[in-house]
């Protein structure tokens, strides 16, 4: 039986992890490669680097980070942030990443999803969607949640699948940072609307939150960042908790 995945997200700026960590003893807590290796040791199922490098001339640093990470961490690695063309994706995938995620660029040019999946296979293409609740539904936001788009999240997810996305990384902007739980309603709505896996993101604060979104939220995977970094939830304990509830996880 396919296990539900637990994914750790690292914000990486100019090759360094931002948001200091109180995570396990690392030689260099700011090194994404070392942090990814530590998470791997803890039993995380997948790692995502979110590149938040602003300056274009320093964009190349993420490639070097991926190269170093992929030499020592043998679990799936995804990279998002700043990927706007097939060439950007190729540099990252040929460096050793398994997937790239696209967000704003895909909203502005949905054909990019098709180009990427034709070139690299849909399993390598993650469509990231930032969602905010509005009335009875959810609206898509781009540019790191700054710009509202005239698009419903559920409709965009369906379109994204049709364009060739292999997976959806769904972030609830309402829940993000609250540590009060994922938006199960949003996640379920999207998960039911598409036939590709859905990763829930935003709001994780406790092991029980993961259990909820992986069951009632019908998510295939759940992602968190700060609670892992600060050691508030340990991946091994989290998986024990899920397993005890009968949720299939890789131990």
């Amino acid at each position, binding site marked *: *039986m*396919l*296990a*539900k*995945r637990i994914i750790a997200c690292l914000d990486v700026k100019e090759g360094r992890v931002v948001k200091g960590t109180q995570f396990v003893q690392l030689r260099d807590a700011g090194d994404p490669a070392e942090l990814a290796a530590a998470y*791997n040791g803890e039993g995380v*199922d*997948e790692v995502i680097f979110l590149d938040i490098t602003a300056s274009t001339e320093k964009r190349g640093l993420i490639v070097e980070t991926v190269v170093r990470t*992929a*030499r*020592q961490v*043998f*679990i*799936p690695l995804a990279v998002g942030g700043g990927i706007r063309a097939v060439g950007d994706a190729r540099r990252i*995938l*040929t*460096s*050793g990443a*398994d997937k790239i995620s696209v967000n704003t660029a895909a909203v502005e040019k949905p054909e990019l999803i098709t180009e990427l999946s034709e070139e*690299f*296979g*849909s*399993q*390598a293409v993650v469509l990231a969607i930032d969602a905010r609740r509005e009335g009875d539904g959810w609206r898509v936001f781009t540019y790191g949640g700054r710009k509202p788009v005239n698009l419903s999240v559920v409709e965009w997810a369906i379109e994204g699948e049709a364009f060739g996305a*292999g*997976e959806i990384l769904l972030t609830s902007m309402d829940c993000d940072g609250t540590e009060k739980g994922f938006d199960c309603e949003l996640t379920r709505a999207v998960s039911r609307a598409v*036939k*590709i*896996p859905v990763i829930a993101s935003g709001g994780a604060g406790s092991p029980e939150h993961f259990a909820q979104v992986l069951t009632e939220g019908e998510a*295939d*995977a759940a992602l968190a960042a700060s609670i892992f970094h600060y050691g508030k939830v340990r991946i091994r304990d989290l998986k024990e908790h899920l397993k005890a509830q009968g949720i299939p996880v*890789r*131990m």
Partner: protein
Amino acid sequence: MISVVDYGAGNLRSVENALRYLQVPFATTSQAGEVSRASAIILPGVGHFGHMMRSLESLGLIPLLREAIGKDVPYLGICLGMHALYEGSEEAPALPGLGVLQGGIRRFPEGLKVPQMGWNQLQVTPGTRLFQGVEDGPFVYFAHAYYLPVDEDEASRDRESPPVAALADYGSNFVAAVERDNIFGTQFHPEKSGEIGLRILRNFAVLSQDQAKLQSPSRGGSRVG
């Protein structure tokens, strides 16, 4: 030396990284000459069956791969590289596979999330060389939309030597790994399956070295007692 075949597959680098980490000697190549001299062959793969078969054809590798497999050169096909062993795939019905094993690759049926993406648990056939030293029930990483159904495998037709090395369950059981004589295939990605995956790759490397020694004892290293 092991030849890792470069036909443009996206995950080539990951396979190279894993072999380097294991300190297994290998050479990545798309040259027919090198592949024909290889002591073992790894065909990585992620992407599209049609693209793969067309690339292999344009590189002139299809007859060479068939010939090498026929000459007992150890072959490990990963994901699409396992699909290549069979007669064909629904992903590109017009293009035949290598056809060294019988059966056809199908698309996962409606009602499942496709691609199957993530870690699934194997039921390993006892005694398989690929899984030597791996505890039963390991989790390994899958990323695929096409698969080999159990009834398409030769197991039902050839009970003497069923090639199924591992099954996994996604909606129903499917073939997650095959092993027959010098032919090995994994539907999952050992290069992305953590410690267990590394063990599987190491097993293949070791059995390839053993095979090479058998075939040319004079080059098999120190035999001086």
